[in-house]
């Protein structure tokens, strides 16, 4: 017995982590998957009901709005974060004085919760006392800014706050990428007569392909999971105009007590994340094996 323990000690030590993750991650996902095929309402039922919940989900107006919003948000969130991130990274890479201070400022939103930043942005975007009043006081008398309470525009307020929170992080990823490239390459290109713009546009940015890939995965992942920011900024409103899948899932589960339907929406989110993550993990592992 003692001998066995001694020999298998590493595996014994590994057991808690493997056991917990098997149960709480894989077991729970399978449970959610199963429940999504049942007609569970307040309490889970275990008789299978086929794809009923999925048909119901994709026929629900609210879910379709949530998916639409997710697509709009993801597209804008990706574009703005990556563009701002690259610009800041390239500019900071020019031997800038006070680089450390600037970097700290660009990245600090990542240390705050979405509830904190959502609260701040909600106040800034306040339709009467916020930005609108600031601009009126500055002399733009007819300036109106009511996006937060405007059905058509409210989703863009979430983009504004989301980009503000995450762009600095993309900057950090790109800056690390730029710094890992040998100076020799840049020097050689300059000797060949390339100007700084060409060096970046033709040489360095194309070399950043893995960073683009990582940023894409990180940002899509954040946007699919977006929940806190919406709760803090709009709670899905006005009406249901800023609902997103994560909010739909929790509302359906815990306010409407439609457990089966919410499980189906959770599985859709899971599949969306898996579609992005599995290729990413695969390529990361391959890269690790090559090197």
């Amino acid at each position, binding site marked *: 017995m003692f001998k066995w323990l001694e020999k298998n000690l*590493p595996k014994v*030590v*590994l057991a808690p*982590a*493997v056991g917990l*993750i098997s149960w*709480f*991650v894989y077991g*729970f*996902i399978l*449970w*959610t998957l199963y*429940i999504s095929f049942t007609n569970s309402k307040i309490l*889970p039922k275990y008789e299978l009901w086929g794809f009923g919940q999925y048909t119901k989900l994709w026929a629900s107006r609210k879910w379709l709005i949530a998916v639409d919003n997710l697509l709009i948000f993801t597209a804008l969130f990706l574009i703005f974060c990556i563009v701002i991130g690259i*610009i*800041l990274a390239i*500019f900071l890479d020019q031997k*800038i004085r006070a680089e450390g201070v*600037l970097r*700290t400022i660009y*990245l*600090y*939103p*990542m*240390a*705050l*919760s979405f*509830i*904190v930043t959502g*609260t*701040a942005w*909600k*106040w*800034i975007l306040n339709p009467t*006392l*916020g930005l609108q*009043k*600031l601009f*009126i006081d500055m002399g733009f008398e007819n300036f109106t800014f009511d996006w937060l309470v405007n059905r058509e525009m409210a989703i863009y307020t979430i983009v504004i706050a989301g980009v*503000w929170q995450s762009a600095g*992080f993309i900057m*950090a990823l790109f800056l*690390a990428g730029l710094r890992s490239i040998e100076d020799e390459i840049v020097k050689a290109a300059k000797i060949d007569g390339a100007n700084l713009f060409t060096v970046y546009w033709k040489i360095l940015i194309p070399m950043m392909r893995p960073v683009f890939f990582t940023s894409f995965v*990180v940002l899509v*992942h954040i946007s*699919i*999971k*977006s*929940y806190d920011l919406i*709760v*803090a900024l709009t709670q899905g409103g006005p009406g249901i105009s800023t609902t997103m899948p994560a909010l739909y*899932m929790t509302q359906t*589960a815990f306010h409407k007590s439609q457990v089966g339907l*919410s*499980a189906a929406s*959770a599985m859709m989110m*899971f599949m969306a*994340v898996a579609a992005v993550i599995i290729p990413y*993990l695969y390529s990361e*592992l391959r890269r690790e094996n090559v090197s």
Partner: protein
Amino acid sequence: MSANISATSYKQLEQKSKLKNMLLRWFLYFVLILFASYFIFPLYVMIVTSLKTMPEIRQGNLITWPSQLNFKPWAVAWGGRGYGAGDTFLRPYFWNSIKMVVPAVVASTFIGAMTGYVLTKWRFKGDSWIFLFLLFGCFIPFQAILLPMARTLGVLGISNSILGLVVVHTVYGIPFTTLFFRNYYVSIPNELIKAARIDGAGFFKIFFKILLPISAPIIVVTVIWQFTQIWNDFLFGSTFSFGEAAPIQVALNNMVLSSTSVKEYNVDMASAIIAGFPTLIVYVLAGKYFIRGLTSGAVKG
């Protein structure tokens, strides 16, 4: 003669490019500072708003400096107005968060360190599959485990309790802490371990006497990462707790959304700063480690 001309034009050219360079640098700084003000703007607005009185907020605008510093909103946000029922303030929830964060960070870091140690220094067949198996846990959208987790906490009798949140955060922190320690230990030469084994050191002795003393940087990274994640969590907090057991982010959200009284934006802003303060301080003091965690544990919402 001709040589003379080209010399002057070369000089002119040089001057021109110097000027161009200077303009370019001005432009660089202009853009960088512009973005810096965009990033700093909400924090500035939060601070000045939290120090104004409500009449002053209505008269002025977002950026006007308070005519005199008014700390009452801070006192109200932290300790309430002192009229019993319906008076919500952050102090008890701040302590809830502390009671939740400390054990969850310690437990998940310890489990991650041991797991990372086994996966790199006591390798066996199929261990990289186990790593992948654990790593996948970093990426799942938590909505996919919310329903069974709620039931499990109920069955265990720890729903709506701080203990329940400690369990949840510990479990879902393990993939990240394992990732951090595994990637750190992989770069430590195996010869060190082999030599110790020849000297007769056992499994635990090697960990505590050899690896742990050189693990300080990765422990800092992991602790900061877990602290920030758990402190800032809202999804688990709002799903698995309510009322008195809620962590600070949930309490902040409830305070800001409560429609019972007249909106007091100064109190809202003071509350938001209080709820963000601990992670912000950690970021300012240990930014280097924070960023290291961020770039290696990147994929989490």
